């Protein structure tokens, strides 16, 4: 346990062989969030004391066997698991979501799109729960415009798991139309209940198929993804606050720093 000397956020972006959104995530963390962002190669075992870990999109290990199936055995994943179990914020987008499911950090699985096609386009998402560390910058029911780019984004889970996810409000984002209606037509990949993103039981691990990191600057066509990053920053600031307010006590590590 180390004491914190700076309020600058540290964001670790994990790079697997075949990751291709790691630079997008790095840029979102560094330039949009103003964080200290850095890459962690999949063979490393030390995450170097991050506040946030991002598992980016791409095709880790060529998606061989199943998307995310081999990445989950990367040496770095032991550290990611410990970080998550200690309450650290973990964001997995696209392939990162697939890796989190394969690793058992999130329930369910992502299988082939119902259309069998790789789909790269803008979709609309409805914020289902604005009370997670990833969504407080949004309001419930808000409709976001965020891009997707995946061939295996069809979320499945057994009925008991699905029921539990819904009952515990762990479905954070759902595909919807421009008016916020969740319909079959607005569902690009066949996901059960239109699920686009879920959190784990503790709420500190988010997996989302769309790419919020690709919607963080007007030049990219949308800034609707910024809220995910701002929400994480707000959550961590609240966690650091006691340390900053106290002159005597050693800086308390926020929940989740392993």
């Amino acid at each position: 346990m180390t004491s914190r000397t700076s309020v600058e956020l540290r964001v670790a972006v994990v790079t697997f062989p075949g990751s291709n959104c790691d630079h997008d995530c790095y840029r979102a963390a560094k330039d949009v969030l103003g964080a200290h962002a850095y890459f962690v190669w999949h063979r490393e075992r030390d995450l170097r004391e991050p506040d946030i870990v991002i598992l980016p999109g791409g095709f880790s290990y060529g998606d061989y066997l199943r998307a995310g199936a081999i990445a989950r055995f990367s040496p770095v994943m032991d550290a990611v698991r410990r970080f998550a179990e200690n309450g650290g914020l973990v964001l997995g987008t696209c392939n990162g979501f697939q890796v989190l499911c394969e690793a058992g950090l999130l329930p369910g699985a992502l299988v082939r799109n119902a259309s069998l096609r790789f789909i790269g386009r803008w979709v609309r998402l409805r914020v289902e729960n604005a009370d997670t560390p990833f969504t407080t910058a949004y309001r419930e029911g808000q409709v976001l415009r965020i891009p997707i780019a995946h061939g295996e984004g069809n979320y499945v889970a057994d009925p008991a798991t699905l029921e539990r996810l819904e009952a515990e409000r762990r479905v954070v984002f759902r595909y919807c139309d421009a008016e916020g209606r969740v319909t079959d037509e607005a569902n690009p990949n066949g996901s059960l209940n239109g699920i686009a993103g879920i959190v784990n039981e503790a709420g500190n691990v988010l997996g989302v198929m769309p790419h919020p990191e690709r919607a963080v600057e007007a030049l990219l066509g949308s800034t609707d993804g910024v809220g995910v990053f701002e929400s994480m920053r707000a959550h961590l600031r609240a966690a650091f606050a006691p340390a900053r307010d106290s002159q005597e006590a050693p800086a308390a590590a926020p929940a989740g720093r392993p």
Partner: protein
Amino acid sequence: MNRYLVEIRIVPREGLLDPEGKAVQNALRSLEFTGVEDVRVGRLVRLELAGATPEEVRARAEDMCRRLLANPITEDYEIDLENIS
């Protein structure tokens, strides 16, 4: 030690929509193959494993399926062994 040829067949779990299987079924129908009631598309993994007994080799193959080769949420698997020593 014996050598075993291990064939592991992995298919989408019963009851789970298999879009690839459905697409193949539709393609077969459009080629006018009649009576194609269902199609499921899976994966075949063929291994050569050294081991003392078929039971022991099977147990290891099962472990491989559980930990890596199959996703228990979405896939079922079957294992066949043949002694090729």
